Each structure stands twice: as C-alpha cells, then as structure tokens.
C-alpha cells in the first residue's frame, strides 16, 4: 500500500505550521498596503489623463522609437538598418511583446518626420528598452502591452504632448537591462552615463521640452 497519503499528511501539517507564521512582518505588510492604497487613490485622481491618451502616447512613442533607431547615425548604431527586434518588458522583466523588426517609412538623419510607418519583420536578438520622460519624472515604460501594434502610421502632430514636454529615451542593448538598474544610473549619474555604465546605446529625443536657460541645470531622475 502506498504511503504517499502519509507523506501528504506530513506536508499538510508542515503547511499549517508555516501558515501560522507570517513570512512578512505585519507592520511592514500594513505599511506596504497603505502605500499602495495611497498610490491607487492618487492614480484614480489622476485619471484625467485617460487611458486612451496614454495608449496613443505610447503607441506613437513606439513608432517614433523605431524611426529614431533606424534613422540614427549608422556608425554609432548596431541596430540602424532593416531588421530589428524590439523587446518590450514589463516591470517584472518578462518579455511581453516582440515587435519583430520595425522599419520607418520616412526620415533620415535623426529628424522626426510628420509620420512614420510600422512594419513587422523577422526577428533578431537585439533588445531595446524604452523609457518615456514626462515633465520631471521618468515614467516606467515597461508597459508594452498598451502599445497599439495594429497601428500602421501615426502623425506626430497628433501626439498629445503635455505642457511639460515629452522625452523619449531608447536604450538598445544585446540583453534586457533591469528597469531599476537603469533608474539607479539615471538618478545617480544622469543620462549621459548610461552608455558607459550599462554598455548600451541610447537615443534621446525631446518633444515640446523647454530648454533650460544658461546656467540652469536640468533636473534628472525621479
């Protein structure tokens, strides 16, 4: 006769023992819950920026990124030509979507055209992370699922650029770089240090961003 039910009973006893002892300090659990409650409340208040608007912003940003990467300086970029995979990650680091190759239909030399075209192409193994900066904060970009992959072309003049401007940072590397590593470098050393410290290529484009006056330093990071 199998003794497995006995083993299962032992494991269930063990589970009951473990279950009586919370793995997370109740005070920390409470603090975390309160923090998230505050976040949820503030997000709800900020719902004026509706979800569709974010969708448009991110969709267009993806198209712009494709253009920027592909129309960048070819000597500087390993990813400048026809085939490119853009691996977009969620905050957990999981690859959500592979935009299997993006090709711009317009633009040379890095200037933003009035529209660009998205085509799906075959995959390579290049990873590109995207961060979007609005105003003074770097928004977590790892939300590829919001991107409208069906869109074929979008006019840049339709972009709902906020009054504080829109900054788009592309980070291209052979391997995905954790978001928090990028955050650390950005906050501690600034945008210029990204390439050197992370061994990646970066492309920064700004739309509607007021340039700081001479002598006025630009704030970075969260």
């Amino acid at each position, binding site marked *: 006769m199998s003794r497995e039910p006995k*083993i299962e009973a032992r494991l269930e006893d063990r589970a009951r023992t*473990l279950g009586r002892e919370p793995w997370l300090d109740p005070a920390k659990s409470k603090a975390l819950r309160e923090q998230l409650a505050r976040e*949820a409340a503030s997000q709800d208040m900020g719902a004026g920026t509706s979800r569709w608007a974010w969708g448009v912003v991110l969709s267009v940003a993806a198209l712009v990124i494709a253009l920027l990467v592909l129309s960048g300086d070819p000597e500087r970029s390993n990813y400048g030509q026809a085939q490119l995979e853009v691996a977009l990650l969620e905050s957990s680091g999981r690859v959500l979507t592979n935009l299997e190759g993006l090709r711009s239909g317009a633009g040379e030399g890095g200037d933003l055209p009035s529209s660009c075209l998205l085509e799906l192409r075959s995959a390579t193994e290049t990873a590109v992370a995207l961060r979007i900066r609005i105003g003074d904060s770097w928004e977590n970009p790892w939300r590829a699922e919001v991107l409208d992959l069906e869109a074929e072309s979008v006019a840049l003049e339709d972009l709902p650029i906020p009054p504080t401007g829109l900054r788009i940072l592309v980070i291209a590397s052979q391997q995905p770089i954790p978001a928090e590593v990028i955050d650390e470098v950005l906050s501690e050393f600034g945008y210029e240090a990204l390439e050197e410290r992370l061994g990646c290529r970066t492309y920064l484009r700004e739309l509607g961003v007021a340039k700081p006056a001479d002598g006025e330093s630009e704030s970075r990071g969260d």
Partner: protein
Amino acid sequence: MGAREQELRAVEALEALGAGALRESPARSWELFDCAWPVIEARVGVFLRSLRLSQEFREDCGQNALLRVWRSRESYRGHSADEFWAWAYRICRHEAFRMAERRGREAVREGDAAEDAKLEDWAADLARDETAEDSEAADEARALEECLAGLDERGRSVVELLYGPDASTERAVAMMLELSKSYVNVLRQKALQALEACLRAKGVEG
C-alpha cells in the same frame, strides 16, 4: 465580519481580479486587491519559499514583488485565478532573479547555515514543551525538511507550491512553471516517492 466570511470575500475578490478586474480603474481594482490582500500576501510567501530564498531575503523580495504585482497590473492578460497566480509567480521569480543579481546569488539562497538555523528553530518550536511526543515530532519535522532540501529544484518547487500554506492547484502550478499539467503530476508523484524513501531511510515511520 467573521474570519471565515473575510476569507471568502478575499477569495471572491481574487477570482474577480483574476477574471480581469485587475485592469479596471485604480479605485475598483484596489478595492478588490485590498480585499484579496491576505490571500495574495500568503501566496507570494509560498512562491518565494518555493524559490528557496532565505528568510531575510524573502521579506525584502516579497515586498518588492507585491509592489510590482500591483504596479504591473495593466500588463495582466489572464482570465482566471490560476492565470493570475501564474502571472504573479513570474513577477516574483523575476524579482528574485533581479535582486539576486544585485546582491550575489549565494547571498539570497538558503545556504547550509541558514537552512540549519531554520530547521533548528522549527524543531525547537515544536519541542518547546520538552515532552517525548513533541521531541519525536520535532525530529520528524527536521527529517522532512532535510528530505525536502534534498529534492531536485523542480520537484521541490512543485511540492512547495502544491503543499504550501496556501496551496496552488496543479493547473496553476503547470502555468507557473510553464509545464504541462500531466508533467506536474508526474513530478509530484516522483517527489512524494522520493520523500517517502528519504524519510524511511532516516527511520521515520509512516
């Protein structure tokens, strides 16, 4: 509200989140998330245990993972509680991986010393009253932990997830580990047999 009723409400809230309410407005999804919090927190603890993280690291990693589960909610694409757990498990696993990369992998896994200390603590708790019965239970508990530690990584994960304080279904575990349900069942049976043999070798009677 009684504890049982709270528990039921938490499970219902979790099912609603898994069905897609997680992507609703922040106010609505938080209402459900908050209600389901005890269930989610408990299960995240099980996930992290299945990854064999040390107690100290589990707490740090777990807090980050809970944050990420909430903040990544718009990326959730599932339609059931099992899919929700599989998604949350992946977040926990990635968070553990990310923190391990930063801290050094060895520092976050249950090393021999940490494992021994944990087993000693548990055995001491069980034997607190110093009765012969408790002492035997402590010995058996220690033997079970040692046998669990001796399982291969996948077998250990399957056992921790299926027999943790807040157990997952085989279907959910299959999704989490990206295996077929039948293979999870095979792993489960093999792990139980291995545990049985290990306990027998240690003189623990059924």
